[in-house]
């Protein structure tokens, strides 16, 4: 990448799974030096849920982990050990941003919350991403992926006509995916403010609020008219004369949006293969597309754009959601093995020597193997 808007910014990354880890990944893509903190006793759960086998080193092979954590350095420090906590506080003095999505209170109890870290480094921008936000009666509530489809309102508007609501499900976990698209921009804005004023910020993100924010006009309309009908309408959309998925002769579904209703469309699709139907509809100025699955996405490199790339080990990983300066990104480093860069980072930022590093390893403060099996 020729342009690095966040060159010189260093991120201490406690981000897990998608919501946290992907926010710091997007900062890395913009040129930030991202140091991911894990420990043998607490791996990023993506290392475990995506493990391909139980052979030695399984924790370094999860595709989901590698998709999300490329372009980061990996440090393993036990955040429950006072020495591990002290080292992390020292690292925070050399960082501009912290990203975390632990359950509320976890970092505070370890002496690594905003109060502690900002006392050591007032310029720190601290992004706390949680299910419900850092305040309010539900702040300690747990959620997992599609819990938030339900509680945000999205599920109430998703489903077959007049049937029960639907969630995006475990293979999408939609609310987890969108939070980083917003949080990254806010973190960048706060970094600009910290540069200008010398003061950092505590950024409190509620994933549920991010998901509800995407229904802003629905909430606004409901507030003005509580009797406004709501609920499931299949694929129909207010203001759109006709819109649905139609089944084609070759067994594939296509999506069609019509500006003028056409009762003959279903039969038209049923008589033709999907590609021919889509081509015929597009030629008439009608929006139509084949319903792709994951394998279709892998095959269609033009449609992929900049969203998928290969890392230096040849693995397929997440690219960018946008093109910057006309380009996507090259992956400069694959997702780190557990603790791969512990020595490198502690030497570079804190001046540790071999003897000190060996001592930390012997004491179990640092590690390269997990102490857990399942999450």
């Amino acid at each position, binding site marked *: 990448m020729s342009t690095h808007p966040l060159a*010189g910014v260093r991120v201490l990354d406690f981000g897990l799974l998608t919501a946290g880890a992907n926010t710091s990944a997007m900062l890395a893509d913009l040129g930030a030096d991202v140091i991911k903190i894990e420990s043998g006793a607490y791996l990023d759960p993506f290392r475990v849920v995506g493990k391909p086998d139980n052979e030695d080193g399984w924790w370094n092979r999860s595709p989901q982990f590698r*998709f999300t954590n490329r372009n980061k350095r990996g440090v393993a420090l036990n955040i429950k050990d006072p020495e591990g906590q002290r080292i992390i506080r020292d690292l925070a003095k050399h960082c501009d941003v912290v990203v975390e999505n632990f359950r509320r209170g976890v970092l505070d109890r370890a002496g690594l919350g905003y109060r502690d870290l900002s006392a050591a480094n007032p310029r720190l921008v601290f992004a706390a991403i949680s299910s419900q*936000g850092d*305040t309010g009666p539900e702040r*300690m509530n*747990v*959620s997992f992926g599609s*819990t938030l*489809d*339900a*509680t945000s309102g999205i*599920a*109430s*508007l*998703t*489903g077959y006509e007049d049937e*029960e609501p*639907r*969630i995006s499900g475990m*293979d999408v*976990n*939609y609310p987890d995916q*969108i939070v980083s698209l*917003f*949080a990254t921009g806010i973190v960048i*804005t706060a*970094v600009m403010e910290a540069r200008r004023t010398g003061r950092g910020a505590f950024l*409190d993100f*509620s994933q549920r609020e991010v998901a509800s*924010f995407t229904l*802003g*006009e*629905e909430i*606004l*309309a*409901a*507030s*003005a*008219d509580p009797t*406004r009908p*709501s609920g499931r309408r299949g*694929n129909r959309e207010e203001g759109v004369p006709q*819109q649905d*998925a139609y*089944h084609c002769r070759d067994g594939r579904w296509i999506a069609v*949006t019509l500006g003028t209703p056409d009762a003959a469309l279903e039969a038209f699709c049923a008589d033709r293969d999907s590609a021919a139907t889509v081509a015929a509809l*597009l030629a008439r100025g009608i*929006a*139509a597309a*084949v*319903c*792709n699955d*994951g*394998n*279709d*996405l892998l095959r269609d490199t033009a449609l*992929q754009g900049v*969203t998928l790339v290969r890392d230096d080990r040849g693995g397929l990983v997440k690219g960018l*959601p*946008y093109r910057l300066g006309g380009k996507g990104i090259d992956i400069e480093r694959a997702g780190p093995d557990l603790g791969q860069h512990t020595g490198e980072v502690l030497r570079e930022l804190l001046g540790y020597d071999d003897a000190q590093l060996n001592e930390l390893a012997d004491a179990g403060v640092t590690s390269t193997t997990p102490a857990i099996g399942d999450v």
Partner: protein
Amino acid sequence: MAAPDDLPLQRFTIIEVNDAKVPLCLRLATSLAAKIAADLGADVLKIEPPGGDPVRRAPPFLPQGESALFQFLNTSKRSLVLDLEGGAGRTALAGLLDKADAVLFEEPASTAAMLRASRATPIEIAAFPAGMDAAARPVSEFTILALGGLLHMVGEPERKPLRLGGHQVSYAAGLTAFTGLAAALAARDAGHTAPDVRVSLAEVMQWVNWKAASGADASGISPGREGKLSEFQIVPCRDGHVAVVYTATQWPATRALIGDPRLDDPKFNTRAGRRQNIAELYAILTPWFADKTRAQIQHTAQARGVPFGPIFSPAELLQTEQYAARSFLANMDHPTLGALRLPQLPVQWNGRSFAPRPAPELASELAT
């Protein structure tokens, strides 16, 4: 709220150009990105075509007849009507661009070449990736959802695939464009050359749906909609519905919560086992919900650390205690529409929220 002169993006000037002939789905993304910047204090000038942004006439509508969609997407902005088909309009726009830090617009816009060449950093919203050369292809959010593979993921495997509620395609792209805009402003602010930003709805949806590509790449088999075969399903309760969701480590707590001895059968101990016996599992789970309210279910489940999700409608969200406690929903006094209630930006910055200011009336001259 803090005074507007204390807002983080207040020293930036941003132009949003709404071309008359651009598909609605692109316009929504542009407007959302610019709205976020405006709520954060940027001086956002929205250039509307004669007759106004067509979103002014798009549903859902407020009882007064105004568009709720427009009011949500255009808070805190100023507006100016310019006829960009004509030389005078373009000259006026060029003058505005000279003083702007960034300009947001859509790819098929008639003024795209001029906007790309301006000294403001271009933030461009398109339907398809740059390499596809498909700017003229008919498009909707729904067809992008299909292309991005997300449509394939929701519904029953034997029935038609389902879209997600709301404008998820346009808004995910709008959030992306906002982050791209912030990156461009940060680069300018640091004295670097800012990268121009190009966001396509198709790329954003694939990026959001990365697990489909990851899963297909790892196993050769694409994930897809599982409906009643999924471990996570929606079940009815006394006053609505609840999403049954838990992690692998939360299964023992979930089993204890339901308290039916049939769940102790070892065949339910693993994710694979539960999936193989999914109909039987749900036959056991479902009755537990039937006589309880969503509030009771959420309360008892959370007490055991089980993340079941009660389903709320937009109207019900207006009453949620959590949103009230955090003042997530702002009361906005609109000069002609009266009191409106809408979500604020979903972040608290040192405890501060960013209260939106009312969307602009259509104006053919800039208010000073």
